[in-house]
């Protein structure tokens, strides 16, 4: 059908329209929906879109006052509806991620204690856990100020809910991780237990850290598969060196099913889109 040349022209044309903020927002929305982790908040884009929405709302009033024909008014209304849907959906997807996966980093940051994932092997999870502790700041910086506040509240609320429902009903030494070391100072029994824990840990060798810190949080699953499309030809240099065995190039416009972490870098650099 389309020859190489005309495809090129079409792409240039697409590039041209992709400069509208709506197009950028749609891209952000699509990527956010398809990515397993929370992406950088598009702060200035959201701001610009909000301003354009306000302007359109003002125009609507002007139309009404000036008796502009209902057809035109309804078309503008549809344009406004579409943009508002995109913006709301974008913010919503992010919030849902903040609550479920993104927030887990905040959970750690604010000293929460969420433990679950009991069907997954302990040892493996702990590595992930430590890894994400290190990366906590990076994750928090991806959130808008309001999202950060929301994450904080979610964490506190969930924390106290778990506290009230489960932890408070457990024997002292098992209520929380932080407490374990505190009681050991004051309580003989605790002290004995504490040393027992260490003994157990050494005896069992590997789940050592698990026993000391029973708290686990879900890490975003970066090995989730995503479908992406490169906007330009990508070479090995566009990917993280550590995945050089996995992925060496990506053809433009070719749909690729790929492990998310392989393409995280070009996604952040705006060289690919998730679909």
């Amino acid at each position: 059908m389309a020859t190489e040349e005309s495809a090129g022209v079409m792409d240039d044309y697409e590039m041209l329209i992709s400069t509208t903020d709506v197009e950028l927002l749609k891209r952000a929305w699509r990527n956010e929906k398809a990515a397993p982790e929370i992406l950088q908040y598009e702060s200035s884009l959201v701001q610009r879109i909000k301003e354009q929405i306000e302007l359109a709302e003002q125009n609507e009033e002007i139309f009404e006052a000036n008796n502009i024909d209902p057809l035109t008014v309804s078309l503008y209304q549809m344009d406004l509806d579409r943009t508002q849907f995109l913006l709301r959906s974008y913010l919503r997807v992010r919030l849902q991620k903040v609550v479920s996966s993104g927030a887990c980093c905040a959970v750690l940051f604010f000293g929460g204690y969420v433990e679950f994932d009991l069907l997954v092997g302990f040892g493996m999870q702990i590595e992930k856990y430590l890894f994400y502790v290190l990366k906590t700041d990076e994750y928090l910086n991806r959130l808008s100020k309001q999202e950060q506040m929301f994450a904080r509240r979610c964490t506190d609320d969930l924390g106290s809910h778990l506290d009230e429902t489960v932890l408070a009903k457990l024997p002292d030494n098992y209520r929380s991780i932080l407490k374990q070391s505190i009681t050991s100072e004051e309580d003989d029994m605790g002290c004995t237990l504490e040393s027992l824990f260490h003994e157990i840990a050494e005896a069992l060798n590997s789940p050592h850290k698990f026993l000391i810190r029973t708290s686990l949080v879900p890490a975003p699953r970066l090995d989730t598969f995503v479908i992406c499309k490169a906007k330009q030809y990508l070479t090995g240099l566009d990917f993280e060196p550590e995945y050089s065995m996995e992925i060496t190039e990506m053809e433009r416009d070719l749909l690729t099913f790929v492990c998310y972490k392989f393409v995280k870098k070009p996604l952040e650099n705006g060289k690919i889109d998730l679909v």
Partner: protein
Amino acid sequence: MAGQTDSTMTLFSSEEIEFMAEDEMAEIVPNLRMDSLNFICGDYGPFLPQLAAQVPLWLALALKKRGKCTIRLPQWMSVENLTRVLEAERDSHAFQPLPFHYVEISRLLFDHAREDIPDMYMVRSLIEDIRDVRFHKVETNLEKFTASTVTWKNMSAMEVNVIRAFAGRALQAFYKHDNEQETPDTDRTPNKQPQIPTDRPKRNLKPR
């Protein structure tokens, strides 16, 4: 399961795919005079009777529903082209080039612009046939998964979405499996064209 975000939440619903398809451009011939529309999503018009104009599909459909224009059938939707595409789909393992949203665009036009499509029934049945052939191809392709990265040329939005959940999980399993079995990965070759596996041990998925 625990530790995983709700996957249904992150996928695109069919309404959302349709929403994206409505942003594709369409050519209309208006029958009214109307000033430029300065939308948030871009500027369109001015519109003059009998003068063709390019607008997003949603706008084309809105005008059409209000009897203000006819929609020109996209070139790829001609009986001639679709017949050729169908033949090529049948003859080749590859997917033929069609718009990413061909399923949604054609459905929207069938639903709302029937009288603007000459040979409507022919066009519709051709598209249905093409769709079936392509879906079958997707299925056969899935059986041939052998790598941690798979590329597909010209796959459409609906096809991608339908197989996303399945393929994603299958690939995840492969990836995990690979990493457990083949460490260190010294003999691993990068997968440029993974749909034609040649140099790796076969681990084909059994059909069904």
